[in-house]
């Protein structure tokens, strides 16, 4: 009977989530199948899959290039965020003097918005007065500043480096906490069995914290694909679509073209991809029971 009271206590949370997340979500999905353009709302009706067709056959923005960009953006950001974050967590595992302050300073970027970080780094990468250009010129590696964000190949590298910087604290925080939960007896036993540091890492540490690794990678993947903030602040998809990913193309449809139908269709595509990805990912890793 107590459960009734508990349900009642959850009502406010349910109402907020329902009213401001799930109802808009349903409407958004419906819009993806309508000709919802702010310039012409007089003849609003369902148009089947036309929005999706229009996206894929768009002559100005090559859909497959955007998909490819999204993949590159995801894979490189994720791998380096994870590897560097894990390294940092391993370095911080043993206590040392000033560890509290140190971790406050290196983890601080977690509390920043992707948008602010994008702004900060677009200044560092600035093609005329950027700090990185200054370093390279002083080192004699280049003669004149280069336009990191205005050269197609370099722009993608620049936004990915920024995204890596953004994600390292997340993995650092999460994996450090997991590392500290590994019982010391396991390490002691592995030393008796003749394990060196490297073997210890692969046979003791990683298996023990595998659930955390699996769930953090899944969460981060969703955020990297979903959030356009960094690219929006740095290049907004340019130059010539070289950094355009699904999420940035989606805001451009909404903000610039006012085509809400096609914008929502992009949203549906992103959700579908993430859904399929999560199902496959969790199937492949189920043996270790990711607990998210």
């Amino acid at each position, binding site marked *: 009977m107590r459960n009734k009271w508990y349900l009642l206590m959850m009502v406010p*949370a349910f109402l907020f989530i329902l009213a401001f997340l799930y109802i808009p979500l349903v409407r958004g999905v419906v819009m993806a199948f309508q000709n919802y353009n702010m310039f012409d709302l007089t003849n609003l009706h369902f148009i089947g899959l036309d929005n999706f067709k229009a996206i894929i056959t768009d002559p100005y923005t090559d859909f497959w290039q955007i998909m490819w960009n999204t993949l590159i953006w995801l894979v490189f950001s994720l791998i380096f965020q994870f590897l560097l974050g894990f390294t940092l967590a391993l370095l911080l595992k043993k206590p040392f003097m000033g560890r509290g302050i140190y971790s406050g300073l290196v983890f601080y970027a977690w509390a920043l918005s992707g948008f602010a970080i994008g702004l900060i780094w677009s200044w560092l990468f600035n093609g005329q007065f950027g700090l990185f250009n200054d370093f390279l010129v002083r080192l004699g590696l280049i003669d004149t500043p280069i336009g990191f964000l205005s050269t197609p190949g370099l722009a993608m590298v620049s936004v990915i480096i920024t995204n890596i910087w953004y994600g390292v604290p997340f993995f650092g925080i999460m994996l450090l906490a997991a590392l500290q939960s590994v019982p010391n007896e396991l390490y002691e036993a592995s030393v008796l069995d003749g394990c060196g540091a490297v073997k210890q890492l692969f046979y003791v540490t990683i298996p023990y914290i595998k659930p955390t690794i699996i769930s953090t990678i899944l969460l981060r993947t969703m955020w990297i694909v979903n959030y356009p903030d960094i690219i929006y602040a740095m290049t907004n998809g340019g130059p010539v679509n070289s950094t355009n990913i699904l999420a940035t193309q989606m805001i451009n449809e909404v903000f610039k073209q006012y085509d809400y139908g096609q914008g929502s269709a992009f949203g549906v595509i992103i959700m579908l991809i993430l859904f399929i990805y999560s199902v496959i990912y969790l199937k492949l890793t189920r043996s270790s029971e990711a607990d998210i």
Partner: protein
Amino acid sequence: MINRKKKIAAKIARFILLAIFLIAAILPLFWIFVTSIKDGTEIYTFPLKYWPDKPSLNSYRELFSFSDFGTYFRNSLVISLSAAFGAMVISILSGFALSRFTNKRAKGAIELGMYFTQTIPTFIIMVPIFTIFSSLGWINSRIALGFVYVATVVAFCTIMGKSFFDRIPASLEEAAKIDGCNLFQALVKVILPVTLPGMAAIFCFAFINIWNELFIAVTVLSSSSKMTVPVALNSFISKTGISWGVMSAGIIVALLPTMIVFGIGQKYIVAGLTDGGVKG
């Protein structure tokens, strides 16, 4: 002998790596700070000066006079504080209830529904929120924006809250009951005082996320007197390029509240995130 040398080498390597991570983490923020205290001409000279000849607060003065940043800062502060507080209260109730709920199946389903909110792209709900709010006459309302913010953080906060309450044995509120408390009194008088750090973590997490949010604010707010800090920074971009003096001053001011909140709540946030979001 060899072992000792190895150990020293490992120590030095560790020290160097830690130093590299620290420099990489601090350099971008340090550089934005240096830019914000340079005067106009020094920002745009190449090769760069790593410290201004005469540090000046001109950019900050301009920020608060021309662009009315004080108003945006106040807007952001009011919205973030009240929405974060609202989210905290709501998720204390829901987190506690979810923790004590005994129907295993329903509990699992509710938790899953909470997690699913994390996968919704902001942009698919942005346009519907705009159209729904237009028809309700809620456009440009800071209260309505606050409601959306509560919704965007409350699911994660509930999960965080649940993990904190899970660690408090139910016998505590049973004892309070014997003493004549009802369920609600037991929660407020007995349970909450024990879980204060957890509540602090929830508040900090909510505050930081709400303070940083840009796109929903752009959608809901239209008049400039109601803008929040991220919206103001965004508007610095669209007006004829970026004036980096004012922009970097704006970024520094925008970072201060999250810096303070993160500084105070770091320990609790870390504990809360790792227990709540991702269990190991």
